[in-house]
């Protein structure tokens, strides 16, 4: 037991209690910090009095590297930001460069982007729910179910892009390759079978009393705090904030699809869990429509060229609704083959900033669950 004095704690223990505080370091080697993340937690008994997130263990200089590479060469690096959802990362970056260079995207490519993007959302949310329950101690059963479904989607990705996770699929002005024969049919089959997994998951855990006991009223994020801390994605929507960039920006061809945005009321872990669950059902609607309507045609703008790409000087900010929240890429071009400035707005990092506010006063066990419900990927947090 180490003793320490607290300067100005948020939740000050009773006077004379300082010596009883226990400071433990959760991470960077810890089973449920989702990578190399560390939390310095100060406990009073098992109650969290202070929590200091420490990150940067996975820092890879992504932004600086991108400023020294050609525009195209940064594309595979974006795969490695949020390594679960490489396709949405590709999309965000491609969108920013397209804005910068004024490139249009052919219709079929837009459809392919929506299809791959929503498939990515499905697999991200499925995995997240699995991991969250793993953090709650469900011995991996939901996680394995999620991985079973994810495998099917990853097979689709491999057939289309050649890689399962590091897809490197989107290009400025379209996509890299067209679908191989039979791919769309297989995708339709996967999408048609996915609701079965959701039903199974729902039966397994949505009405489970232990889950509700563990998550309801835990880690409440108020709507005001969500707005003032720039929280985005399912986390913001769980706090009742109607903010979905697919609706707000209507980028790509999203206005063509009818889907609804589920909104939470309490902003606790249970809401964040359920919002993601409901979002998967909405994504399936989009996927059904997109797979039905996808037209034939070119998949890349003929003006887009792989070599010698130099956008004219200017700046652009492209953002998409990634599964984890608002993923933005900010680019400044000085007319050279490299971006002058390249900046990522990672949803994980910004959603993580409220971690201490969510955790204070809760138990150590809750810290793990709250962290799980924030949905971070350290590749994106540390970049």
């Amino acid at each position, binding site marked *: 037991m180490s003793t320490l004095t607290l300067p100005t704690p948020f939740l000050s223990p009773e006077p004379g209690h300082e010596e009883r505080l226990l400071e433990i370091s959760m991470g960077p080697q810890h089973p449920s910090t989702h990578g190399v993340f560390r939390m310095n937690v100060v406990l009073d008994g098992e109650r969290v009095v202070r929590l200091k997130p420490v990150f940067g263990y996975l820092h890879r200089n992504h932004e600086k590297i991108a400023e020294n590479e050609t525009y195209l060469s940064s594309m595979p690096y974006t795969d490695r930001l949020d390594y679960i959802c490489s396709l949405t990362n590709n999309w965000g970056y491609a969108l920013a460069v397209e804005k910068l260079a004024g490139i249009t995207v052919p219709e079929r490519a837009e459809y392919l982007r929506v299809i791959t993007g929503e498939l990515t959302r499905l697999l991200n949310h499925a995995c997240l729910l699995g991991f969250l329950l793993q953090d709650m101690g469900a011995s991996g059963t939901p996680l394995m179910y999620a991985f079973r479904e994810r495998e099917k989607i990853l097979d689709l990705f491999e057939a289309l892009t050649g890689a399962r996770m590091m897809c490197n699929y989107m290009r400025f002005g379209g996509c890299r390759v067209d679908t191989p024969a039979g*791919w769309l049919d297989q995708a339709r089959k996967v999408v048609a079978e996915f609701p079965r997994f959701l039903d199974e998951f729902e039966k397994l855990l949505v009405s489970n009393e232990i889950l509700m006991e563990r998550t309801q009223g835990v880690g409440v994020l108020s709507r005001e705090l969500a707005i003032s801390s720039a929280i985005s994605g399912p986390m913001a929507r769980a706090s009742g904030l109607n903010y979905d960039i697919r609706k707000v920006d209507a980028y790509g061809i999203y206005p063509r699809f009818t889907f609804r945005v589920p909104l939470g009321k309490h902003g606790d872990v249970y809401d964040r869990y359920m919002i993601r669950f409901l979002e998967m059902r909405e994504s399936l609607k989009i996927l059904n429509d997109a797979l039905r309507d996808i037209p034939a045609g070119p998949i890349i703008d003929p003006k887009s060229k792989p070599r010698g790409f130099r956008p004219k000087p200017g700046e652009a900010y492209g953002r998409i609704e990634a599964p984890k929240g608002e993923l933005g890429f900010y680019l400044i071009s000085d007319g050279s083959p490299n971006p002058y400035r390249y900046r990522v707005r990672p949803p994980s990092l910004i959603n993580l900033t409220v971690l201490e506010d969510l955790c204070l006063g809760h138990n150590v066990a809750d810290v793990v669950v709250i962290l799980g419900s924030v949905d971070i990927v350290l590749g994106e947090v540390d970049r």
Partner: protein
Amino acid sequence: MIGNGILKGLAETARNFFGSYVSKDRLTTVQYPEQHIPQIEATRDFPFLVYDGADWESGMRCVACQICEKECPPKCILITKSTDKKPDAVGKPQFYPAVFDIDISVCMSCQICVEVCPFDAIKMDVQFDLPTDDRFGGLLLDRHKLAKSNEYYHQIHPTEATAVDTALAAERAKAAAAKAAAATPKPAAPAAPAPAAPKPASSTATPAPAPVAPMPVKPAEPPIKPLASESSKPGETK
């Protein structure tokens, strides 16, 4: 009633427990060393250099233009240009790489080199079991190790390779025509005749695969390393 959700969950796991004995759909595990998943055609791993004909050194398509070296995001390619020239795949005299090293411990399999190569000389391999006990040398592949025949390319990516061959044949024909027009006494003898060059199906020069083959393609016993399983059927335990 309290406890209802727990009972529902128990029923679900029981269903999965028995389901995993009955349904292939539930038990998706592939038992790796004995079983392999069917090769997916688009799969990519590490790059290799294509050569035509029988001799890897003379048939290499690479002309050491160093575009891939420049574009490679993690900069894992090292090329040294030759001092002399040799005829390339089309027949024009070109430089060739005196040194072409790829450090596959750095390579991130992004395929950018393939995309930027104007000569269809570098392609993506599908071989993934490359363990070695030599940390530094073993993963640094030189041009000999990288060189793989066009036939091998056909085996692993048939659709794409056919498209590439078609385009190359067209270019060769164009070059031959140009040479004939220049009235050179000697007719062009391509360094390596394209193996069973099929009839041009499309005239596009891009390596975009034509949607012909069904998606998961099982290679018909590649000579290099058998990827298809020789052992038990999937789903069987020892």
